[in-house]
């Protein structure tokens, strides 16, 4: 054996050892440093949000006294009432919620039906249509605004919910997302449903859609977020306060209240609360949808 060829007198290197105590201490120091770094990073990330909230609670002169302005004196929440009174922010929020909800429902429905076609039906011309869907991903909305504006004008859809919603009722991204989920459904389930007496529509709604729920949830959250945050399009086609979304409302608020900055910041806070709440509530669904397969067991 090879071991015996080593001369007995050869000194064996002793690996450096660390006492358990020292190791524990070292670990504690390291995790303390980690917390320090994490906290600094968190403070930096949160600063714009914090300062906005702090400033929304200040009245004029008080704000200019750094560093005192970092800590709001008395909590005066009346500014949040005032922002609803002086601006149409209530209406803006309603419009945004309505438009985003309509777009979400619409996108989910059109994605489900289109995804089903690309996942389950076979017919001549399918590939061509698939390529057409793919092609829409290459045309950013910014490229077509000039022509789309003309279309909206000719439809008489300026300052209307139709104008805000209809152009976004289809999504290739969503179609591909749901199609992926449908394609993960075992072939046998499709066959079993056929024998159980279900045609395409029966299978789609009572088997495929429930099984694709995680993907559908992910698409819903994603669509809603994108629709809520839209800026260029609503700016372009709405002039009437009755149809402005909250993003454009903030713009109006900012440009017409330059002196009353706390009002602007209060508006900013109000405008962001719904989406923060929504994301915290649906965070899990989104993550689950993106990570887990559709069918298990």
């Amino acid at each position, binding site marked *: 054996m090879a071991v015996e060829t080593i001369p007995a007198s050869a000194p064996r290197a002793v690996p450096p050892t660390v006492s358990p105590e020292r190791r524990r201490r070292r670990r504690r120091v390291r995790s303390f440093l980690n917390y320090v770094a994490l906290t600094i990073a968190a403070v930096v990330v949160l600063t714009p949000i914090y300062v906005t909230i702090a400033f929304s609670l200040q009245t004029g002169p008080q704000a200019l006294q750094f560093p005192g302005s970092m800590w709001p004196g008395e909590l005066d929440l009346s500014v949040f009432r005032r922002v609803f009174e002086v601006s149409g922010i209530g209406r803006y929020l309603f419009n945004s919620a309505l438009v985003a909800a309509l777009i979400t429902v619409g996108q989910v429905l059109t994605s489900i039906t289109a995804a089903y076609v690309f996942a389950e039906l076979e017919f001549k011309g399918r590939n061509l249509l698939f390529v057409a869907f793919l092609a829409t991903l290459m045309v950013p909305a910014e490229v077509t605004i000039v022509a789309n504006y003309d279309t909206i004008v000719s439809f008489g859809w300026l300052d209307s919910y139709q104008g805000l919603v209809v152009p976004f009722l289809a999504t290739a991204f969503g179609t591909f997302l749901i199609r992926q989920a449908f394609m993960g459904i*075992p072939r*046998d*389930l499709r*066959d*079993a449903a*056929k*024998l*159980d*007496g*279900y*045609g395409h529509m*029966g299978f789609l709604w*009572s*088997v495929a859609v*429930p*099984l694709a*729920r995680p993907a559908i949830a992910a698409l819903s959250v994603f669509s809603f977020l994108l629709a809520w945050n839209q800026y260029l399009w609503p700016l372009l086609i709405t002039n009437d306060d009755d149809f402005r979304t909250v993003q454009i409302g903030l713009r109006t608020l900012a440009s017409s209240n330059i002196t009353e900055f706390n009002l602007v910041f209060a508006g900013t806070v109000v405008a962001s609360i719904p989406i923060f709440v929504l994301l915290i509530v649906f965070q899990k669904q989104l993550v689950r949808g993106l990570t887990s397969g559709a*069918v*298990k*067991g």
Partner: protein
Amino acid sequence: MAGVSFNGTSKHFDDVVALDQLDLEIPDGEFLVLVGPSGCGKSTALRIIAGLEEATEGTLHIGGVDVTDVEPQHRDLAMVFQSYALYPHKTVRQNIEFPLKSRKVPPADRRAEAETAATMLGLGELMDRRPGQLSGGQRQRVALARALVRRPEVFLMDEPLSNLDAKTRVQTRAELSELHATLGATFIYVTHDQVEAMTMGTRIAVLDQGRLQQVGAPDDVYDRPANLFVAGFIGSPPMNIVEAAVERIDGGIRLAIGTGAFDLPESWGAAVSATGIERVAIGIRPEHLRIGDGPIDGVVRTVESLGHERHIVCELAGTDHRPGDLVPGDLVIVRQSADDPAPRMGEAIHLGAEARHLHLFDPDSGERIDP
């Protein structure tokens, strides 16, 4: 009344012929097993009955009616899939009720029917669980219950036991046979496992490369395989098949295997002569070979003991085509009772069998030669 009949039915996938001109009559109430190696066309045949595949040629009749182009849901049959195909988001109850729902059965009746089917299969406790929470055997039973609840005339089963552990499989095999007896419906069962075929079928149909090789009662197929493929496929360990040279002596026929030779009975001699072949394939089941005295010489290569019986692998003397090569000559398996005296490895032996246990085949066409 729902027999099933294939009439020259074929299925082509592009250039591949999955099923080639199948003619098969399955009478009402039969338990027919479609058996063959993977890719033999058995699943395609089943899917054509189910209506999940369109036949390229020929027709399919169920209960005397041409259903070649009838949609699956109008064919009055149910199917149990290899994967069970349970809907993972539905409870056991909802799974079982699902086929009734599409047929607009009122909820109360649906529930009652589902209960009946579930009780029959001992699923009473599990009605509110989801498939993910069940064992393989339980899932398999839910799939059966879902098939049963519609009281179809024809049951189709696609390798329903292959995902079960050995013990559950044996048990379920018995249960399925019992179920068939109780319901009296037509069962068509696909498997690659010849043991399942032998134990369950009232008749078995052996398929290979899209063609029907033989159909008949299990014992008939076992005792009189129609060709070399069936001979080698049915039976475990498989039938020994050895080629022999045909020598014509005094109007009789002598078959030479390696260093040994024996004369064929006269009745057979005529049949072999009639074919005019130079070589013949001899088939002998392992349990019919005897060690002791006989015309064939061999050497014991390995002895495998299974406890209750013994498999002895012998090499036939004089069949070693290339002396000194590691490739062995013709090997045969002898199946012995554990009570018989065991030969030693390397021992020279003589092998023999009764003439009635011989099977002869044309080695080129593979067809059986009967006396």
